[in-house]
Each structure stands twice: as C-alpha cells, then as structure tokens.
C-alpha cells in the first residue's frame, strides 16, 4: 500500500519565481543529444523494438514541464523521452531502459514506450495512442479527493485528437473542474498521415472550447511561449479553476520512428521547420539578453555531449536482464 501513504505535494508555486530560461535551454540540449544518441544506437541495432524520437519538439517538452511544481505529474506518450528527461528521469536509467538493459529504470522490460517513473511524477510513456490521457485526468481526480493541490499534464500528439477517449476525458475534467492541462504536440502527422486528412473542423482549439475549456494554439518551437502559456494554465488549475487545453505546433525532425523514410513529407516544409529549431533560437536569445555567452553555451554543449556519451558507454556495457526477472512483478 505504498501509494496510499504518498503525501500531498508541497504547495509549489513555481509561478512566483523568475523563469529559468537557461535551465530550459540546457534541458532542450540534453534531450537533443540524448535523442541523437538513441538514433545512432537504434540505427546500429542496439535498441530493441521501435523508438520514436522527439528531436524538434524539445521546446514543447521542456516549456510545459518547467512550468510544473515538484509534486505535479505528467502522462507522456510514445514519443516521450523528452518528457521523461524534463520531468527528472536519470539519463542513464532512461537510456538503459530504452536499450532493454537490466539496470534500466523498469528493468529493461518496458523500453522506450512504457517507461514509468512515478518517483519523478511521470505516469509513463505509453504504447497506446491516447493511453496516458485518462491516467493524468484520473490522477487529478485522486488528488482532488485527498485535498492535494497538484496539477496534472497529459501530453498527446495530433493523432490522438480523433480518439473518443480524449473527448470523454476533456468532458469529465471540465464538469469536475479538475486541475488538468491537456497538451497537444501537434507535429502535423500521425505516422504517415497528415493531420488535415483525418481531422475535421475549422479549428483544433475548438476541440477544447466545446467543453468550455480555455484553449489556445501556440508556437511550440518557442520554449518561452510554451512556458508562459503553460504557467497560466497551471496557475488556473492550481487555483481550482479547472482544465486548460494547449495546442503546441511543432515538428518531429526525424520520421515517425527510426528507420522511417519520410517520403510523405515535403522538402520545403521540412526546411521551413528546421529553420525554426527551438534550440538555436533559444540560444541566440539567451546571448542577446546577456544571460549567457556563445562560449558558455559551447561549454554547456560539450558537457552535455560528455554526459550523454558517458551514459551511452555505461549502458552499452550494462548487462541484460537475467532469466529470473521474467516473472517478477506481475502481482504485488
């Protein structure tokens, strides 16, 4: 009954403190390098199963999560490494899990798509599109019942917009006024299908408004926009005013999964989005504002490169799970 003794989160009002733009930049860099390493490892055949990388979507991952307090929780999805890192997952544990190693946070049995990290308030990545949505909404219901003041975010892709599950959860969080922030990472595609081909109606934000949920579409390539928008939604939720819906327009720089040839993308479009890469954009602004220097950013990048490379090296040599693990933890 471990969970029943969990305490309510500390009041946590990150909105009171000045935003840590530098920290967000650092996290985006970490995610980018992490994903690049996973891509290399996957291409080399070191990753069991399928991996879906979030390179390109870092501003969304980081901007949203940076607006959360420690006890707040998220539910992620199949393209979720960035969320996991931003929510505090240990680089080595996550990488080891993705490689299916025994030392992975989930014993190497869950991999990229089923990574659960409750200690960091992460209800998990999810192999079922939309699967995390009710988990976050339900966690909010539990928090409300025990008088907690935590806020719950569920991330989902544009593909999940057409799942009835999302509508059901939006409706329920709205009637019950639950502290949930729905975040759609709209990268324009679900697998190889363009969002416009499968998504009816004049506007995506209307899909939240229809339930009376304040809804907004924003530039998901700008970490500051994402952060400040989320911050308002979080404050609203924490104040007991109910759910919000944020659509972050973004782009996955890679394909659906490692190995996808991406013939369904147009070159011009790809170029346009690459030019909006959230990381250089954030870097330039930090320098312009005097919050850092080009040299310092270089050092930072070198540190991160080393950090990730070290993790890769350690993980490569980490042992696979022993046979005895197969039947562990089916029941408590």
């Amino acid at each position, binding site marked *: *009954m*471990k*969970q*029943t003794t*969990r305490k309510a989160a500390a009041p946590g009002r990150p909105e009171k403190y000045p935003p840590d733009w530098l920290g967000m930049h650092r996290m985006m860099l970490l995610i980018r390098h992490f994903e690049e390493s996973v891509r290399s490892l996957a291409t080399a055949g070191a990753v069991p199963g399928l991996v879906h990388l979030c390179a390109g979507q870092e501003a969304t991952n980081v901007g949203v999560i940076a607006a959360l307090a420690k006890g707040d*929780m998220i*539910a992620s999805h199949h393209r979720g490494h960035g969320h996991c890192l931003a929510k505090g997952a240990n680089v080595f544990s996550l990488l080891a899990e993705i490689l299916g190693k025994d030392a*992975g*946070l*989930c*014993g190497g*049995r*869950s991999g990229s798509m*089923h990574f*659960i*990290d*409750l*200690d960091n308030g992460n*209800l*998990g990545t*999810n*192999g*079922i599109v939309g*699967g995390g*949505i*009710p*988990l*976050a*909404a*339900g*966690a*909010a*219901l*539990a*928090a*409300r*019942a*025990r008088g907690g003041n935590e806020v719950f975010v569920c991330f989902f892709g544009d593909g999940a917009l057409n799942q*009835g*599950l999302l*509508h*059901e*959860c939006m*409706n*329920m969080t709205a*009637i*019950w006024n639950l502290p949930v922030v729905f975040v759609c990472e709209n990268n324009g595609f679900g697998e190889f299908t363009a969002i416009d081909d499968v998504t009816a109606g004049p506007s995506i934000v209307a899909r939240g408004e229809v339930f009376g949920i304040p809804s907004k579409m924003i530039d998901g390539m700008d970490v500051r926009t994402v952060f400040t928008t989320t911050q308002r939604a979080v404050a609203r939720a924490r104040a007991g005013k109910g759910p919000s819906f944020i659509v972050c327009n973004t782009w996955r720089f890679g394909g659906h999964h490692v190995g996808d040839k991406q013939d369904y993308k147009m070159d011009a479009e790809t170029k346009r989005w690459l030019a909006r890469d959230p990381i250089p954009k954030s870097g330039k602004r930090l320098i312009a504002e005097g919050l850092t220097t080009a040299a310092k950013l270089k050092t930072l990048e070198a540190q991160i490169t080393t950090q990730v490379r070290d993790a890769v090296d350690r993980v490569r040599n980490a042992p696979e799970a022993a046979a005895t693990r197969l039947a*562990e*933890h*089916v*029941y*408590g």
Partner: protein
Amino acid sequence: MVEPRVITFREAVLEALFLEMHADPNVMLIGEDVGAAGGVFKQTEGLFKTFGATRIIDTPISEPGAFGMAIGAAMAGARPVFEVMFGDFMTLCMDQLVNQAAKVRYMSNGRASVPLVLRTTMGTGANLGPQHSQGFYAWAAHVPGLKVVVPSNPADAAGLMRAAIRDDDPVLFFEDRMLYTAKGAVEADIPLVPIGKARVLREGRDITLIGIGRMAQFALDAAKRLAADGIEAEVIDPRTLVPLDQEALLQSVRKTHRAIVIDGAPRSYGVTGEIASIINEDAFDWLDAPVMRLGAADTPVPISRTLEPLWRPDAARIEKAVWTLLS
C-alpha cells in the same frame, strides 16, 4: 467474532463497501448513477449520503475514459472501486484494463501499481437479452496482472470485496445479479476472505462439482437432490479464478475420482477448459473418467422466456450430468 445475521448478497457487499470506505479515505467509488441514485440495482444505496461527491463519482456515459481515469487515480494513490453497470459493457474498458491496469506493475518493474476493483454484474434469469447478460471473466483470467473474483454467496462476496479493495493489484469482481436477493449468514464484522482460496461448500465422496459463481449454488441444489439417491457430491466454489486454488480442487478429485466443472458463460474457450485441464494434468491417475464440463450454450443470450432458461446449466442439468458421469 460477532454474531452472524442473515442478509442478502446485495446488503453484504454494500456493508463491505461501507466498511472499506470508512476505514480508508483513499477508497473511492466511480460509476454511472452510483451516487445520489444509489445504483441501478440499489447496490450502492446510502453510501453517497455518508461519503459525498468527492469520494463517490457519478460519471457520464463514458466508460473507456472513466475507467481509464480510475486507473490513473489508482496510480496516484487512490483505491477506486469502479463500477461497470452491466458486465457486457466491460467490452468498452478492455484497452484500459489490459494495456494499462494489468501491466503497470510489470512495466514499472514493481515501482507502481494499480490498486483498483472493477466491479460488474452479469447473469441470466431476468430476460435482459444478448447485450445485458454476459460475464467476461474468462477474458480477464487470461490477462496476466489481473485477479478475478466470482463469488457465489453473501459472506464470500462481502469478505472478498473487502479483500479486493485492500489488494494492491487490479481485481475484477463479477456479481451475478440473480444472487443479489440470495440470503446467507454474514458475520457483522465481515471477515476478510483471502483471494486465492477455494471453499468447500459441501463435502462428499462420490464426485466433485466445481461451480463458478451462481453455478456453485445450482451445484449445491443438485447435490441435495443426489443425496436423496445416495450420491454424495462434494461441491467446491473456487471463488477466485486468478489466483486459482488448484490444490483444493485436486485434493477433492483425488478423493472422489470424478469431477464436473460448471460455468454459466458460453462453454467454448471459457474457464472450464483451464480448470478441467489442470485436473486432468495433475490428477490424471486418480481420475476414473475425464473431467466433464458444463457450460452455457455457444450462442448469444436470447430474451425469450422459454429460451433463456435453456441457455445455461441449472440444478436439473447438473444432476443429469452427474448420472451420466457416474454411469
């Protein structure tokens, strides 16, 4: 021990719910019309008045989303009892049940769990027809990570409901609506019944009758009739299908050398195959005949008053099967 009273199955389970909600503030009740309305079968009557709208949640008709939310609540510290009004609607919750609830403990390497009860109703006898009669415990039993309870009497139902709520894994709890008015002795403090222990409802030496849920009651009825003819049937109620108390079943069969497994769901690919196979495998040398299986017809449940009663086993058909097996 507190004096037992004779109360109905419905009352007994209601008391169990009350006790657990009272004992643990993390227990919540979630479902359709379970609050102010007290449940369409009066199965949650009065709870709302005591525990209110933060702990008893009336949902819209949104089974997949609402059940998914119950799982999220369980991961975050609550102990929800989620009610699916008719077992037939469990079909709407299978994704959340199987791909999330059943696997969270495993996928998290034991770091998270889903202490949740999915409570639902089933059974024939009220002519509710093809979409309001089914019980899919066979499906649930096939999914690693789920526990499956099918009680046959008030005391067991209440004690198992308490145990299910206290269990740290997802437990599916199947109630036969026709048992709701069945009466039995229930001690006032409602002793916990451990999940995974069968119960011998009647001792006998000639044959073992293993009945699932209400079928255990029909088996008892059949046993009484058979006793008049000098046949002493042992009647066992497994009570929980997962975990299954194999040893209790085997022990009985080693004594009687004959067994019939009786189920109230379609026979093909239902739970009787598993139970019969286990006995055949582990008590082969004690068996005088192969384990016999009685199940419902491999058809949908018709509403017709003449057809519905033919659909599943009853005491008469069990009695007949015993004579067949003994001859």
